[in-house]
């Protein structure tokens, strides 16, 4: 890339962030809130104490896993909207495994390991379904994924209100919490589990290596850039797409698994916490650069946690974080389009 191009690209990115900030300030002013104080509260809410910082990491882990996984499918030219369902299926499979194992004589560590693997398997299978619909059924992965998301939600609700209901209770609140032995151990006094953080980081690193340093990654790129050309050059295209789905689904499933074992300790209807859709935003924002997944996902997680201060302190709705995230992505995409136009012209 030429020097001017880098400069242009950087300038436009900065402009995008500036525009997003300006837009947010306008929204805040329109709702009669002090913008500086609002931003200050968000920053304090995310980094005001050690515990808050580690809380950001707690939601960073699933977001990191999901976004990393999505980069694999993005590289293969696939829009894996079904990631939400893959997270959910991971959570369901983990819950299922823990329910089976909690009364067994298995040591808790082994039960947790098996349940985590079950979660990855659950997510992978759900992703393969979307992949099979695409490859063999000709169903666009966006529609297939959306459909499977609905099925995953319906399945969760049915399990919670039906076979997995709490004794004597009929509530969409969630299943009976697992005994504490089956929670992933956390750092003392905190909510952060290294047993989730380390796998999250490892997964991110592996995706980076896979996409940048392997033959497989190269071929995946070929499939993503030009399916037909890749096929003509002898790349087994559908196999690569299925593999991309499988890996992404497994990572999504792992995220869902951690939601059960490290955060909620039971299955709830909103178990995915929307990390799938948020992960799509992250993946779009980083534009195929795996290294950037970690900081951007961290930034999003911090925004989400920090914005909880808004209703407490300023009586503002905390959906502001969603506004910032959405607007940021929109402006970055918009100015990316502008850049491409300028480069062509």
């Amino acid at each position, binding site marked *: 890339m030429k020097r001017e191009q880098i400069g242009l690209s950087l300038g436009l990115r900065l402009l995008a962030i500036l525009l997003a900030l300006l837009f947010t300030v306008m929204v805040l002013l329109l709702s009669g809130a002090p913008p500086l104080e609002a931003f200050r509260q968000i920053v*304090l809410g995310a980094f005001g104490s050690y515990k808050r910082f580690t809380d950001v990491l707690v939601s960073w882990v699933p977001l990191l896993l999901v976004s990393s996984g999505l980069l694999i499918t993005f590289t293969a030219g696939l829009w894996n909207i079904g990631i939400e369902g893959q997270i959910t299926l991971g959570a369901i499979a983990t819950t299922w495994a823990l329910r089976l194992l909690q009364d067994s004589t298995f040591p808790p560590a082994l039960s947790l390991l098996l349940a985590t693997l079950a979660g990855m398997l659950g997510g992978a299978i759900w992703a393969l379904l979307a992949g099979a619909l695409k490859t063999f059924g000709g169903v666009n992965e966006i529609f297939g994924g959306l459909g499977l998301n609905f099925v995953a939600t319906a399945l969760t609700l049915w399990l919670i209100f039906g*076979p997995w209901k709490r004794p004597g209770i009929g509530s969409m609140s969630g299943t009976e919490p697992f005994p504490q032995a089956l929670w992933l151990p956390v750092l003392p006094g905190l909510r952060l589990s290294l047993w989730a953080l380390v796998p999250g980081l490892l997964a991110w690193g592996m995706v980076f290596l896979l996409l940048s340093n392997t033959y497989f990654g190269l071929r995946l790129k070929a499939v993503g850039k030009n399916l037909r050309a890749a096929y003509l050059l002898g790349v087994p295209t559908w196999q690569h797409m299925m593999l991309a789905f499988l890996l992404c689904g497994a990572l999504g499933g792992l995220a869902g698994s951690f939601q059960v074992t490290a955060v909620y300790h039971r299955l709830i209807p909103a178990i995915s916490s929307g990390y799938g859709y948020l992960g799509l935003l992250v993946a779009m924002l980083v534009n195929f650069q795996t290294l950037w997944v970690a900081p951007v996902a961290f930034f999003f997680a911090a925004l989400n946690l920090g914005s909880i*201060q808004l209703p407490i302190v300023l009586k503002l709705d905390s959906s502001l974080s969603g506004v910032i995230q959405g607007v940021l992505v929109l402006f970055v995409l918009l100015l990316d389009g502008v850049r491409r136009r300028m480069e062509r012209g």
Partner: protein
Amino acid sequence: MRKSLFTVFAFVLGLSLILSACAPKTPTPAPATQAPATQPPATEAPTQPPAPTVAPTEAPTQAPFVFGMLLVGPYNDRGWSQAHYEAGKYVEQKLGAKMIYLDKVNPADRPGTTASQLAEELVAQGARLIIFNSDDMKDESTKFAQEHPDVFVIMASGDQVWKEGKAYTEIPNMINIMGRMEYGKMIAGCAAALTTQTGKIGYLGPLINDETRRLAASAYLGARYCWTKYLGKDARDLAFKVSWIGFWFNIPGVTDDPTKVADDFINSGYDVIISGIDTTEALTQAKKAHDAGKAVWAIPYDFIGACEEAPDVCLGVPYFNWGPEYLKAIKAAAEGTWQSQFVWAGPDWKDINNPDTSAVGFVKGKALSENAARMVDQFISELAGGLNLWVGPLKLQDGTEYLKEGEVATDQQIWYLPQLLEGMEGQSVPQQ
């Protein structure tokens, strides 16, 4: 390219840091009740010595006692959560204490967070006592109370610290508070029975548990009593159907839609809907049907002002008045006389609508006929005089005996009602 993006990110971080650094100097007009917000976050709980029962006495002239409240729904839901919010305001006014609150505390509205985590956020803003206002936060309130023995906890509607209860756990820093809404629901049932023209009463239920079963059953007992005793009709001619939506309020795509459930009642001839959920869909749908020319009424729930939304169809509202009990508990916390206990507070029978003494009340609605209103008053005075409808013979829905002839239900039998009662239609436990 990668390098450039790093610069971008550094810029974002830098900008947020600059913003945060600038802010304190800016003379921002502090929006109401923000005092502790600008102070550094209060010490995290573990650093304070645990002193659950002997909280130091605080001079009321100094910094006011700060209490926090977690509301499961919106603070202005005209129902369950608003009743708690107003009670918090009441305590602020009576005690000179200060409330901070966070509403919509449930995983659907605040994804990725847990109630105990959010409670810690209120503690960080200075709260020394946390009110968990929903059954949905019961497990989380236990977890929080045990992890923070130096923070006082009120768990509304829970039974964790009821020594005679089924779920007893020793938690010195926790108080359970609940109103004896059984009375409010009996009165509601009575008003419904006196009004229905079709003899069919619908009960819009939330989720199924001990609490909701006993409240639905209370409404039925009140309805049956007034139907047979005051109207002289046969109990078998009174239909009483319960439909559950699956949660305390509507969560689109997750629960059944209460709007639709209410419409189903109306369209199948149920002309009075008693609401058991946190929000007012029963009332609004009844109003729509009323405006379309149908003779339909509704009885909302929880909040004293609930009828205001549709007075023309509102027969009255049984409501919680959390204020007096919250005042007692928060005062005890502030003054160091806190005692872990289970409070199940009844109405003040001298005046069930006394805002300073009655934990539950009933306000008659504009749509209640004069004649029915007279009989409702009579029913209330009978209850005040000692009338107890939780007396045998009573059978459970499946026909098994619940109370023998003349047997009076204990508090435990009522609290943990295992099924709906015979004569009620609807699920006692979830079936799918």
